[in-house]
């Protein structure tokens, strides 16, 4: 006789089903022999082969990874600075304004962000001749702009949960401010910075709206490529592409999680 499922468990199962069934069905269909995206024709790796011969898709993937790597790194650096500044210097002039401004991109409609960035880039080009046209550079800058806000908030949250006296203790033991930053602040912030970097990477990697606004001819990110393809009908090779992305993201998240938990747990004495 089957045991009755408790209410919370039922809710949990529905929730997970809602989140993951579309993804799993997409993964399943990426191994579909049939060229019709919605009918099962047996197992095959055919579409992965097709995908690797499709240089357009591959270029888009590489471009997206490149942009995500660069923008996530810059966003982490800038976002960490902003997060520390917001937390540490509690009472500098305009702190409230600054902290409101750093959070604005979180709630700003992407269409607005995209449009304003596009106008900004155009007028900047008219003024100083840089950036020349729209393309990879402008997409990268745009991605840094909106993802650093997320990093700043993650870093700030981590600092808020941390004992202030750690830094004072280091100072008290003779460390100059820069040493305190290197020895104490940054190591303790590492988990937050890694989490922020991953978040920034993901945000950049799947951004479609803002990228479309600030992109120029020849600079097609993966989401832009997929979106343009889907307009002509879903082909199974897109499923294969998406499956690869899911695999990469999963590996990345698992690795990052392990790094983060190891940081705090501490090894047993050897």
């Amino acid at each position, binding site marked *: 006789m089957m045991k009755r499922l408790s209410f919370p468990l039922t809710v949990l199962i529905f929730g997970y089903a809602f989140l993951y069934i579309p993804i799993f069905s997409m993964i399943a269909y990426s191994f579909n022999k049939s060229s019709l995206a919605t009918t099962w024709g047996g197992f095959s790796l055919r579409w992965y082969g097709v995908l690797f011969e499709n240089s357009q898709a591959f270029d888009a993937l590489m471009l997206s990874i490149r942009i995500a790597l660069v923008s996530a790194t810059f966003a982490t650096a800038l976002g960490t600075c902003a997060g520390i500044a917001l937390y540490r210097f509690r009472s500098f002039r305009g702190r409230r304004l600054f902290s409101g401004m750093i959070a604005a991109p979180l709630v700003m409609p992407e269409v607005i962000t995209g449009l304003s960035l596009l106008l900004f880039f155009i007028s900047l080009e008219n003024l100083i001749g840089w950036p020349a046209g729209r393309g990879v550079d402008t997409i990268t800058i745009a991605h840094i702009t909106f993802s650093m806000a997320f990093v700043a908030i993650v870093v700030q949250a981590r600092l808020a949960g941390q004992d202030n*006296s750690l830094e*004072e203790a*280091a*100072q008290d033991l*003779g*460390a100059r401010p820069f040493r305190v930053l290197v020895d104490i602040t940054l190591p303790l912030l590492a988990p937050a910075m890694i989490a922020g970097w991953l978040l920034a990477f993901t945000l950049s990697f799947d951004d479609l709206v803002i990228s479309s606004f600030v992109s120029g001819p020849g600079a097609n990110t993966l989401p832009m490529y997929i979106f343009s393809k889907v307009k002509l009908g879903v082909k199974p090779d897109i499923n294969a592409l998406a499956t690869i992305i899911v695999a990469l993201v999963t590996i990345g998240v698992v690795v990052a999680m392990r790094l983060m938990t190891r940081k705090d747990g*501490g090894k047993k004495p050897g």
Partner: protein
Amino acid sequence: MNDSGNVYKQHETIAVNTEAKSAPIGHGRPWMDPTIEPFIRVEGVSKHFGDFAAVDRVDLDIYQGELFSILGGSGSGKTTLLRVLAGFEEPSTGRVVIDGVDMAGIPPHRRPVNMMFQSYALFPHMTVAKNIAYGLKRDGMRKAVISERVADVLDLVQMSDFGPRKPAQLSGGQRQRVALARAIVKRPKVLLLDEPLGALDKKLRESTQFELANIQYKSGITFIVVTHDQEEAMTLSTRIAVMDQGRFPQVGTPTEIYEYPETRFTADFIGTINSFEGSVESVSGSEMSVSLPALDMTLQVPVKNGISNGDTVCLAVRPEKIWISTSPPETADTAVLTGTVEDQGYFGNLSLYRVRLETGEIIQVSAQNRERQSERMIDWDATVHIHWDIASMVLLKE
């Protein structure tokens, strides 16, 4: 001799000793010796946060090798003063001089002081040994010297086996020792301790108290301890500064603070005291007579500066200075008061009685339980006689 208006029933003409007996000048009491320069001078230091003065124009001289306590309740400004000494806060006025050097503008990492934080502030990502070595590394010492010093100090705090552990793997008491080790390993001129025993449970606190004093003695470092625990301050310190609302109502040895409190705050804050308000009836020569309505008597006490006829003063006596008995004392050369026991507490080694006098005043009396008996001699509602040596009373400022 007695020329007071006899408003209240006059029992006796008795002198009250309000002056601290001067202690002999000599070894171990550098504050009594005018030829010794103070090691730390706090001169007119204030610290304002907005309109609020956390520390309000305080002066303090602390001598080398002292274990000096700053005792106060929460919000008294004691931690702020400690942070001023450590350099985490710039004083709003005044200056701090340590070993002849004015500390103005000197950042924490260049001061000859180390601090043990209330939260211990151990670096969670470093092992115990690395935590302790951190300060030495900043001084650019050689590795061999560092590991030797770390081993020595771990030995001193009895934590030799714990070097490779992370702070998260230690108990509260062990963390406290590591924090202490890290703070003294640099052999600072002054060690500042913020509630060093605050996070430990009662039993551990008592044993650690003596260890702390022992380590202070062995290392010879001047300790400045901030605490809210009067017992801790009494047992540990060479001297205590009582702090209240950013000021020091009194600075002195534990005995001075306890036996000769100067203000009502100090007297109440440390131990318990029976205090009685009275008015000055007359001043003549070096004596004045004070009438105490609560006791229904008038006492002759030495004059204090600035007190004149008609002033309100406060006389006080500690509960353990009072004798209590069920039968009238035979040879009492002092006033004997009669009352009933309203409440009593039995603590095993001693008992505390609350005695209501005929005037309605309640006096606390504590007595050693010297004899073993299954029944109490003095019980609720018993009529008792109490008296005390008038010389054990103190005159308190408001």
